[in-house]
């Protein structure tokens, strides 16, 4: 009997294809969003973790502004006094303090002009930080040693994609009207900002900006046996005495991971809410379609009852129909969701964000659960209309015009 029911139902769905497909579309969108979130969730977490790994576990970063918005200082213009930052080296447990300043500058290569972030750093200390703490190496070239030279090191994307022509070691680039020589190219880090960076000596940086005696950030490298939290507290205490920057942040690795985790949770929550709303809209769409279907088929319900269909038969017909609409929407939604996640992963790869999506990371059991849920959503959505259909007296239904 179930087979005959299914044939009857499928024929009914195909009789009104546009309405059926529009209803299915509502479920497709909701399921697609849910699948994208699930498929990319692990990838996003891993990407953030690998970004955090660059941070180094023996490093504390000091910068102006709130922890939640480290880039605000770029626009705010707050700078620490150099002497206040270098004084942090006296704290027990601190191996050294590497100063850093950042500004957006116009750069020119072979007549082509671009704008990118330029970091003024201390070559010797930055080399230790990048190679030891952050695991970043040079792909080609060397680390300059002359603090007054015009040598620069460029990020991997600056070398390969920023300009029409690739930039190589030995090439010259003009930054704020000054000729700079490419000493080295960093290997790909997999993070957008870092791969587009330009590094130069902090002295050269100050020559270009005309601002001296200040620095934006400090990377505080710790001794292996240092107590990270204790050092962080002491840094806060010392910097609390200076008045150049009122609001500043002292970011330890653990705090950064926590912050990133919070951001990720909020993003996931928002996406889940959007997906749930979309699913609810889809479910309401099914209910609307089923109610309309009941009204349109009132006479046919009467005919079926007249020839022997029971109330349960009618209920089953409509519930199965709404369930099938849900499942079909689920299958298409899952398919498109995986496809969309794949495309997002591909886009991420091309823009320096690796590992967002992989087929191996798909939770097939989770997808099966989603498919089952779409059937349940369909059935629940169709329940009220199906009940009203099943309760009609045959004569009453047959009289309906």
């Amino acid at each position, binding site marked *: 009997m179930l087979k005959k029911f299914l044939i009857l139902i499928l024929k009914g769905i195909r009789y009104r294809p546009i309405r059926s497909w529009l209803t299915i579309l509502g479920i497709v969108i909701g399921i697609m969003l849910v699948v994208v979130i699930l498929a990319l969730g692990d990838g996003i977490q891993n990407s953030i973790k690998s970004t955090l790994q660059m941070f180094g576990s023996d490093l504390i970063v000091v910068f102006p502004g709130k922890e939640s918005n480290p880039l605000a200082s770029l626009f705010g213009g707050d700078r620490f006094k150099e002497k206040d930052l270098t004084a942090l080296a006296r704290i027990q447990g601190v191996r050294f303090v590497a100063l850093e300043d950042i500004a957006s500058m116009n750069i020119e290569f072979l007549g082509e002009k671009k704008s990118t972030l330029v970091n003024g750093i201390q070559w010797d200390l930055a080399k230790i930080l990048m190679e030891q703490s952050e695991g970043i190496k040079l792909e080609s070239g060397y680390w300059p040693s002359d603090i007054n030279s015009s040598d620069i090191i460029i990020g991997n994307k600056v070398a390969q994609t920023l300009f029409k022509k690739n930039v190589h070691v030995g090439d010259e680039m003009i930054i704020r009207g000054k000729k700079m020589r490419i000493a080295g190219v960093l290997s790909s880090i997999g993070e957008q900002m870092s791969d587009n960076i330009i590094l130069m000596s902090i002295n050269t940086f100050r020559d270009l900006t005309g601002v001296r005696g200040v620095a934006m950030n400090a990377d505080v490298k710790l001794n292996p046996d240092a107590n990270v939290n204790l050092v962080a507290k002491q840094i806060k205490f010392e910097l609390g005495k200076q008045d150049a920057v009122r609001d500043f942040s002292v970011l330890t690795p653990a705090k950064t991971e926590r912050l990133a985790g919070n951001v990720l949770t909020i993003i996931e929550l928002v996406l889940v809410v959007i997906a749930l709303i979309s699913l609810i809209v889809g479910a309401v769409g099914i209910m609307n379609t089923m109610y309309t279907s009941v009204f349109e088929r009132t006479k046919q319900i009467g005919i*079926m*009852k*007249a020839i022997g269909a029971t109330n349960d038969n009618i209920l089953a017909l409509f519930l199965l129909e709404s369930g099938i609409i849900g499942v079909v929407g689920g299958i298409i939604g899952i398919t498109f969701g995986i496809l969309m996640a794949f495309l997002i992963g591909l886009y991420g790869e091309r823009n320096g964000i690796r590992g967002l999506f992989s087929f191996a990371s798909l939770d097939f059991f989770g997808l099966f659960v989603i498919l089952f849920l779409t059937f349940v959503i369909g059935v629940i959505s169709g329940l009220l209309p199906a009940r009203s259909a099943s309760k009609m007296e045959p004569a009453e239904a047959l009289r309906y015009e």
Partner: protein
Amino acid sequence: MMKHNDTQPIIDPVCGMDLSEFKDLKTVTHAKTKRFFCGSFCKGRYEKAPERYEGEPLMKLSNIWKVFDTGTIKTEVLKGLHLHVWEGDFTVIVGPSGSGKSTTLNMVGLLDRPSSGKIYLKGKDITELDDDRRAELRSRTFGFVFQQYNLIPWLTAEENALLPLVFSTAKANEKMLKHFFGEMVLKDRMEHRPSELSGGEQQRIALLRALVNDPAILLGDEPTGNLDSITGGKILDILIDLHKVHKKTLLIVTHDLNIAKKADQVISFKDGRLVRNGTVHEKLR
């Protein structure tokens, strides 16, 4: 206003009419029991086979009232209807519009519930059966044919004809199917949907659907109402064949005198009850 009889009504054993309000009734005494009849036709039928009419009719409607209540208006369509349908009879119901003919058919066929009164199937009270039992009876006992054919638009002719089998665990009557598929099969039209068939073809499919479970009674509500005379004649031929050859009990509501002339009896309705009309209430010739 509903009539609550405290005393037993006088019932014509043949047609089931309530004779309590009438005088000058025809009578027959059989086995020391006096029987009253509405007219010579019923009296004559009884006299030919009294044992038949002493038994239980196939369907008996007893003091049926049906009130349609829309909330603001109450309409009494059936007012204390009594009716007997005997197995093997071809009965036609005639009457003006609104007299309760179709409502009576719905009562007999369990498509609707009476507001009060009793319905018996072979002597068994089926008035208060639950919905599932009523559906089962509709599936096995009654076949319906409607004026508007009432086929499912998205199914083919063949699927429409066999639709009762979807809701029934019983097997189709193969002999009946073979006979009527042979007689009525539309050959290459069976894969067409109803919108692609003529009225006559649709009604033949509807008849086939009504017969697929070999019901005891075939109920027809103006089966030729939407057809031209020639097509209607073909449907009539099928009905006659069902009655004469296959001994089907037919209860047909119609204005078509051609059908009425072929019936064993014609009963007349007025104001929700059978009317005593000697001219009409007899076999038309």
